């Protein structure tokens, strides 16, 4: 390599340092200075509510992840091992729940299993899924099952077809080939998906908040409560430090599994040739997959239908009209058009930041390929920082620096971009890692400066990755609720916050309509992501 551009890694390193690591470190430092180590230990051991929050996080995370793996694994195998019509469309469709705003999923659970839910009205026994821990787990599963399916499929595809065929010609039965050749990859994928879903579920915020209440608060929700209602920022900071440490092991395990999954994927020279659906086992896997896809479609359909036609009666579509009327404006403090504009603006700017950082980081990786591993680990660090912790630290450190509440919109954008960074950059990392330096070197030899060579040769090849990264960041920003809710002031309300506020004000038809609107916007972004033809990578 002749390029010398290692310096260009600085923007992304600096951004994460300034807007994530430093504020969080200062928050922890401040908490420890005020409370001391003894205070920290006491806050964890002496407070029954804090202990309860940890137990809730562990319980909700473990239960959600285990069930997601159990439900998602067969469909993941079906997706990764067999060829069937519409396979790539289904793969794309499975990204929808991941991109769904958490508050929409919460409302969807209430639509299905709540007091006047579509399902619970017909089958009252299933009303148990409308409240408390079962409801939280059900909501988590809406996000988690597709993630496990996609990771398991990736794991299945990481096994070499040649190896499997060789094993068969040596006498290995299909069961033995599963055990020896492709099974381990699928287990790896499912485990990686399991750990990621554990991370998501253990720090869930909207689900315990709406579906259960204080007795189900995760540590995430408890930190928010301590800061906003308990007026105990020191206690919140100390609890946040404990949460950070709590997340280290599952995050490390997830990254380790992801690394192994990538290594085995990249060592496979030819892509596997999935089999055709013939055997009874394949039919059983297909049935499970169809049932899951049907459930997701039913879930989305119900949210949309209920947003247009609330259970209490009224004209079809009336809630949507009211949403843009004076009632909603009075309730929210600003017109819904402005809420929508805020939502789109914040998400668009956050996505642009992520994209620019990705482009510059790509140049750095081209110049210094050895930076790759370190950089990818670094951009994963925000995974350790939960949305509430990020918002809390930004509010403590940056809000006074930037000049108070009028500039809170900057922090909302920053938080959305930091939270999207690890996921969005995944779409870029693989194409960037696979770039051949020869084209860039040829451009350099022909006289192009290194930046021009990068823009002319590498960037066009990762255009689809860039587009996916941008849209991914945009979609995550659209639906981001936790950090935004922590930071927001009425002027800067976003759609997901509006859904929660309207729900909290018991304006259910309006909340449903806002959720429906958010769903439609998210689906439009999904359609754009799908049009770009992304691979599901996390």
């Amino acid at each position, binding site marked *: 390599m002749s390029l010398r551009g290692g310096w260009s890694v600085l923007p992304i390193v600096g951004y994460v340092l300034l807007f994530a690591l430093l504020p969080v470190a200062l928050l922890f430092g401040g908490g420890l200075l005020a409370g001391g180590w003894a205070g920290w230990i006491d806050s964890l051991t002496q407070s029954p509510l804090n202990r309860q929050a940890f137990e809730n996080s562990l319980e909700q995370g473990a239960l959600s992840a285990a069930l997601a793996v159990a439900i998602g694994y067969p469909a993941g195998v079906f997706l990764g091992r067999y060829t069937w019509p519409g396979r790539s469309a289904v793969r794309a469709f499975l990204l929808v729940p991941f991109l769904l705003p958490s508050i929409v999923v919460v409302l969807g659970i209430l639509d299905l299993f709540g007091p006047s839910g579509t399902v619970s009205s017909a089958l009252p026994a299933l009303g148990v899924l409308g409240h408390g821990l079962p409801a939280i787990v059900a909501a988590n599963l809406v996000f988690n099952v597709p993630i496990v399916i996609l990771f398991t499929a990736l794991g299945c595809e990481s096994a*070499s077809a*040649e*190896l499997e*065929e*060789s*094993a*068969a*010609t*040596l*006498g*290995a*039965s*299909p069961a*033995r*080939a599963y055990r*020896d*050749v492709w099974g381990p990859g699928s287990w790896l994928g499912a485990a990686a998906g399991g750990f990621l879903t554990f991370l998501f579920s253990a720090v869930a915020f909207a689900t315990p908040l709406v579906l259960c209440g204080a007795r189900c608060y995760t540590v995430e929700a408890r930190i928010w409560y301590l800061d906003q209602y308990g007026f105990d920022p020191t206690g919140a900071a100390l609890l946040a430090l404990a949460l950070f440490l709590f997340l280290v092991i599952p995050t490390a395990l997830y990254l380790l599994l992801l690394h192994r999954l990538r290594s085995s994927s990249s*060592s496979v*020279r*030819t892509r596997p040739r999935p089999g055709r659906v013939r055997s009874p086992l394949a039919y059983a896997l297909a049935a499970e997959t169809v049932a899951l896809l049907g459930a997701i479609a039913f879930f989305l359909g119900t949210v949309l239908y209920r947003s247009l036609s609330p259970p209490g009666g009224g004209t079809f579509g009336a809630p949507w009209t009211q949403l843009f009327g004076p009632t909603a404006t009075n309730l929210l403090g600003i017109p819904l058009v402005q809420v929508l504009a805020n939502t789109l603006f914040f998400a668009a700017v956050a996505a642009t930041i992520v994209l620019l950082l990705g482009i510059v980081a790509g140049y750095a990786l081209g110049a210094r390929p050895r930076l790759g591993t370190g950089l990818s680990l670094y951009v994963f660090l925000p995974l350790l920082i939960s949305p509430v912790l990020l918002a809390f630290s930004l509010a403590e450190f940056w809000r006074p620096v930037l000049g108070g509440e009028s500039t809170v919109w900057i922090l909302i954008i920053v938080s959305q971009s930091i939270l999207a960074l690890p996921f969005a950059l995944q779409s870029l990392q693989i194409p960037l890692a696979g770039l051949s330096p020869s084209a860039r070197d040829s451009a350099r030899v022909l006289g192009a400066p290194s930046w021009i060579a990068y823009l002319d040769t590498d960037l066009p090849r990762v255009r689809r990755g860039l587009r996916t990264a941008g849209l991914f960041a945009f979609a995550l920003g659209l639906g981001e609720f936790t950090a935004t809710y922590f930071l927001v002031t009425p002027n800067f309300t976003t759609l997901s916050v509006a859904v929660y506020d309207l729900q909290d004000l018991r304006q259910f038809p309006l909340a449903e309509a806002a959720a429906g609107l958010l769903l439609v916007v998210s689906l439009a972004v999904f359609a754009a992501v799908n049009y770009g033809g992304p691979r599901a990578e996390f």
Partner: protein
Amino acid sequence: MGVLVPSSEPPALEVHDLSVSLGRTPVLDSVSFEVAPGELLSLMGPNGSGKTTLLRAIVGLERPARGTVRLDGRDLREVPVHRRGIGLLLQEAALFPRRTVYENVAYGPLVQGRPLAEADTEAHQALELVRMQGFEERDPATLSGGERQRVALARTIAAHPRVVLLDEPFAAIDAGVRAGLRGEFRHVLAERGIATVHVTHDREEGLFLGDRVAILLGGRLRTVGAPATVHDEPPDVETARFLGYNVLPEGAGWVAFRPEAARLDPVGSAGPSVEVLAVGFTGRGSLVVVRSTSGERLEVELDRAAVLPRPGERRVLNWERSLRFSRRA
């Protein structure tokens, strides 16, 4: 290679009227041939001719649309891959990662349920046969390409196949190692009496290794026979082209001749005029690339004593032995 086909023995492998489609695309059309125990059939054809699909259909990885595959007279239609007793060696050795060389070689006997002691003996014998003893504890990732292919052969042999299919196993091996390795493969497989189908797009390799050779073009088997016969008597113009013949249109058909049977005469001689495009030294002599007036690029091999033309000059092309093919209706 010098192993003759024992004509009295019944064939180990019989492929009859085999047709395979991938999706809606027909890839193989009514392919039939037999291979005797200990015999090596070289199946040659250009990329995309259906060679690999044919091997995959024989081993059971592709389902034929029509036709049968028989092993020792037994129809394999309903026999799954792992019970067929047919070994497959690929261009990539496809050794199991995170298993030692020994564990790779012992894999076949073990998954077939043979006792541990027997599997151990089989593995050691197979490794000895391919001269890889002493490598038992090595990680396959630390082996060279040739060593990996030797281990792959040992692994295949240890599984006791009646038939082995070789899918261009030497294609990724350095030229210096390749010649010796293919000789070793041939020797080991013949010694074990294993019927072998070896596919390659390399004409020289196919003709060198095969007891008999077959040419597969466009999914159809054009000819099967002794290497010299196939080489000297291609049945049609496409096969002649694949075998390296120069082909020129002539009347209602074509005339085909070998580059080594061609010569370049001075302008004014009787025969078609050609333009010299390039001249290069080959070791044994020189290769001259020329272009006919009708645009065909042709090759002429000249010996070292010949006076070489320069690029751009014109010559008259003549040849000694030739074949004539008529256009099919």
